[in-house]
């Protein structure tokens, strides 16, 4: 019996189609990961350059022209360092903590629409997926602090998880206004609805949500002025004090990918993603020839610059003040914003 009789042509076609789909998805994953990791490498370089110049220094200058090869030097150095595990550590948990942390950050890149038709997984609950995975990232921080069996790491882990879960609430609530205006949780649909709206970007009508989101995004990613889990003067380095070599690099990568993710989320939900507001296009019609991904990336870079800017400008908060801001100001303001958005939506429906 030959094979042609066993497998009908339609099955073969379906299999080929399935194979092509899988290949396209794999290719997209490779592209996104490669570009994402390259961005992480140079995000560290630009961070040091930007902060250096803000403090009237030059930043890295030695490796390559203007220190351009510095990220690679750092990576190679981290890779060849000795991997130390504390004697009393819980080994298995110690191993998986950085993996959970980085995987939870990286998997989120799959739902980010970088351009009108470029997204790995176009799912209907994209926004909720990002919240869910941000919640999983907390475990990486938490159990790394616990498994290290060190007081500094433990305190850092406790602080950090308390911080992340508190500010996750504020962040989620600040995005509800966006969901209500767009009427969808699909990130591509949010951008499309935004491009067609009167203001072109939700940062203008949703300015309360925007402000809350930006503060919560900085707190979520443990950046200055909210980098209490890593407060050097109090906790050495926070939850990853005991980590060295490549395991430390995984935490480092995860943190910067989380930053890319927050910047992308801000771009998608408040700054219009790959679209430009219609009034800008009216004044400069030639801008419509620029591919959307350029605008997306530029907005992400702007948000990154903002991260560095406040790091160089604002001192660190005290822990109790910081928690008070989250619970007593940001969350009530975000809930008020939801009420306001709903009211305006109903009134507009009545009037129009």
């Amino acid at each position, binding site marked *: 019996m030959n094979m042609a009789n066993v497998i009908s042509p339609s099955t073969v076609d379906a299999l080929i189609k399935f194979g092509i789909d899988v290949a396209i998805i794999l290719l997209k994953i490779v592209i996104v990961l490669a570009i994402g990791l390259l961005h992480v490498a140079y995000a560290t370089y630009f961070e040091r350059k930007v902060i250096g110049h803000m403090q009237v220094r030059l930043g890295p200058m030695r490796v390559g022209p203007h220190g351009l090869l510095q990220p690679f030097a750092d990576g190679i150095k981290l890779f060849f360092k000795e991997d130390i595990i504390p004697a009393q550590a*819980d080994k298995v*948990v110690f191993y998986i903590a950085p993996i959970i942390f980085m995987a939870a950050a990286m998997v989120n890149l799959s739902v980010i629409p970088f351009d009108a038709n470029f997204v790995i997984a176009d*799912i*209907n*609950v994209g926004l*909720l*997926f990002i*919240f*869910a995975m*941000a*919640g*999983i990232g*907390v*475990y990486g921080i*938490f*159990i790394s602090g*616990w498994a290290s*069996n060190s007081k500094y790491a*433990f305190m850092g*882990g*406790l602080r950090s*998880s*308390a911080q992340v*879960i508190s500010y*996750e609430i504020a962040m989620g609530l600040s995005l509800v206004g966006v969901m209500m205006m767009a009427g*969808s*949780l699909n990130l591509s649909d949010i951008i499309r609805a935004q491009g067609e709206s009167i203001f072109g970007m939700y940062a203008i009508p949703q300015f309360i949500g925007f402000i809350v989101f930006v503060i919560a995004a900085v707190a979520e990613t443990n950046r200055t002025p909210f980098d209490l889990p890593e407060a050097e003067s109090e906790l050495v380095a926070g939850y990853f004090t005991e980590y060295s070599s490549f395991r430390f690099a995984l935490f480092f990568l995860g943190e910067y990918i989380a930053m890319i993710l927050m910047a992308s989320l801000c771009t998608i939900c408040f700054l219009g993603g790959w679209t430009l507001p219609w009034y800008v296009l009216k004044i400069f019609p030639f801008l419509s020839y620029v591919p959307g991904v350029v605008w997306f990336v530029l907005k992400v870079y702007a948000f990154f610059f903002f991260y560095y800017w406040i790091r160089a400008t604002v001192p660190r908060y005290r822990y109790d003040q910081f928690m008070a801001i989250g619970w007593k100001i940001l969350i009530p303001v975000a809930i008020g914003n939801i009420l306001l958005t709903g009211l305006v939506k109903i009134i507009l429906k009545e009037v129009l």
Partner: protein
Amino acid sequence: MVSIGFFIYFAFAIVVLSLLVVTRKNPVHSVLWMLLLFFHIAGLYLFLNAEFMAAIQVIVYAGGILVLFLFVVLLMNLREELSIGKYTTFGPTGFTFALGLFVAVSMSLSSFIAAPPGKYSIDLIKQETHIKALGKLLYTEFIYPFEVASLILLVAMIGAIVLAKRRLKS
């Protein structure tokens, strides 16, 4: 066919993971197995075409409640398992009751009747989107149970605040 295979995997994994959760000596390991368990439950929801429920399952249980568990476990500092003996001597009796309950439940399974399907078929939900369908039902047909549930949660919250404040004064 494929979905049945996945269901068998998920059901089996959920049972095994639950057993792992309750038998671990170290509470932090229990919590981590429970995290995996919640992911499998979310996977089951995905196969029921309930992606919203799956996302909420992970956000609320894995991202919220389980982190609070972890907080309690860590703050009590149960690093080394307390080596207390058995709490009670009713082990065999309890086992007999549990076995009896298991037999009773499995016997009643044959008389299980599926509820009549409502007007929301999978196609209709896809067309209306999950959140819209869910919101409409919650705020019209099921408004009473919904409000009761929120009242219960509110009571629990106020209770917790009262307890915390009382300790602050003394």
